[in-house]
């Protein structure tokens, strides 16, 4: 990583740490939400941006882990230290199962993941004796680890920020590894990777499960943030919005999904404050993103920078 980029990242991180000291609880809550959904979008983008698979069932892993935490903590008084690993395990096991979808590609993969996603939503919605139905499960406590106990949204903000930064670092290591390279190779040309001797199905399956585990972690952060969970967490809309965030921000990058989360959640909060048809506006954003910014904001910025860099060249190099 070069100097200027480090500087920008450092400044951004500094701002993020300082923000809760200057902003009120409204902004703190909104920004925490942006981090959490950014993490979910990042998990979707591991498949979308690196493996070329468009999954629309990530709300499932997100919701299953959120429900696991809620049920264990609220109904069975299980401490955070056990509930969180159990939740991530539950989400990951579901990903092991849904990972079957990698037997297909393209449209089939998209359609099957949509159907999978609805199974989980349907369970959350209908199996009310276990999930609480539409009311869901309320009064989830703040996380606590032995004597360390989160007491306020202010403290929780920092916890989420720390987890998200650690995840981003881990994610960076993962995509820079030979495994990440292999995934991008499969995205570029699966037949070539297969003829080179790579077991492409296994790589995609692994990526799917890792991505599901990351989405489960986002679900844990979500339930402690919201303090309740209902079938909305498993909704199709969450899955599509996570994908949209990755695309709007810039698929295949780390910052992109978070940028997308800031834009989408920011826009939704702003528009819904004065316009009744805000869901239609969100739909219009989907359409606009596909038609005009398929590479996302990071892509646009890159292109702008490339243009700016190239612009003076003709005068100096062409004789």
């Amino acid at each position, binding site marked *: 990583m070069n100097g200027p980029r480090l500087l920008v990242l450092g400044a951004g991180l500094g701002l993020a740490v300082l923000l809760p000291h200057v902003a009120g609880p409204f902004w703190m809550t909104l920004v925490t939400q942006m981090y959490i959904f950014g993490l979910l979008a990042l998990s979707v983008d591991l498949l979308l941006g690196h493996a070329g698979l468009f999954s629309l069932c990530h709300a499932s892993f997100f919701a299953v882990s959120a429900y696991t935490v809620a049920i264990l903590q609220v109904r069975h008084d299980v401490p955070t230290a056990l509930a969180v690993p159990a939740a991530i395990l539950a989400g990951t096991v579901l990903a092991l199962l849904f990972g079957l979808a990698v037997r297909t590609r393209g449209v089939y993969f998209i*359609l099957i993941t949509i159907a999978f996603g609805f199974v989980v939503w349907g369970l959350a919605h209908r199996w009310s004796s276990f999930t609480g139905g539409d009311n869901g499960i309320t009064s989830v406590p703040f996380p606590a680890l032995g004597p360390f106990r989160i007491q306020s949204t202010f403290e929780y903000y920092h916890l989420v920020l720390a987890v998200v930064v650690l995840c981003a670092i881990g994610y960076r290591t993962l995509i820079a590894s030979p495994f990440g390279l292999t995934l991008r190779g499969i995205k570029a040309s699966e037949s070539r990777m297969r003829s080179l001797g790579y077991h492409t199905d296994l790589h995609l399956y692994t990526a799917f499960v890792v991505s599901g585990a990351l989405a489960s972690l986002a679900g844990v952060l979500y339930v402690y943030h919201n303090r309740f969970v209902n079938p909305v967490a498993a909704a*199709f809309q969450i899955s599509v919005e996570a994908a949209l965030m990755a695309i709007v921000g810039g698929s295949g990058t780390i910052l992109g999904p978070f940028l997308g989360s800031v834009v989408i959640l920011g826009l939704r909060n702003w528009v819904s404050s004065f316009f009744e048809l805000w869901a239609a506006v969100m739909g219009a954003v989907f359409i606009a993103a596909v038609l005009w910014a398929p590479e996302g904001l990071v892509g646009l910025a890159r292109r702008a920078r490339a243009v700016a860099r190239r612009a003076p060249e003709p005068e100096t190099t062409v004789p």
Partner: protein
Amino acid sequence: MTTGAILQAINGTSLAALLFLLASGFTLSFGLMRVVNMAHGAYYLLGGYIGLSIAERTGSFTLAILGGGAGIVVLGFLVDRFLIRHTGENHLAQVLLTVGVAFVIGDVALHIWGGDTLMVPTPAVLRGAVELPGGIVYPRYRFVLILFGVVVGAALWLLYRKTALGAVVRAGVDDREQVSATGINVDRLFVLVSALASFLAGTAGVVGGAFLALYPGAEWEILVVALVVVIIGGLGSLEGAMLGAVIVGLLDAYGRWLLPEFSYFVLFGPMAVLLLLRPRGIFGREG
């Protein structure tokens, strides 16, 4: 027990008829145009609402069906021409874009028709019950729906398999460039098939709105079940849509009856099995 089982069989078959209307349009537009249109569910709901308004004003169920279908044909044409066309063959872009279209339609419909559960009124001829041998009493409407589904299915099948137009469409599914090279206007063919798909979705909304009711969110619930039909039957196959609709309709009916809390799960089972054995569905082709 047996009475219940028979009732569920009819329930399932009538649901299958409805699912076929929706899934056949979806599968044909994929087969020919390579377009994944996730707005089909929203087309269904909007078609139903339009039909509802027409039925309330005119009192005619036939007009409601035709009007609901026609309204969606116009909308579908505009969406195809001005939006989907720009996505080329990028399925990911198509899915996101048409989901966006569905959100817009859903929200606008919520604004116009409100959030209550509404039923499309049916004419007196279709109301009431039929008494079957064995003392089984069943709503007449559902029988007519099954009949309607069978008639539409047979008509579509004949059109697809036995007419010159159908042959051109099938050829287009196999190799679009080749068909175009023989001098057939493929674009016009696309408009035609897309209009048919839209019409089917719109009518399905009216027909379905008379027994499943119309409410915000119904568009996704029906779409996902139609997707399972298409996944099981095989994308792009009309016969697959028929068989898939019957399988899913029956599974759903028995699932709701025997395991009401897990009815979605019942649909998921055969899909998972299929994924292991035939990832491209029963009638799906490899490659």
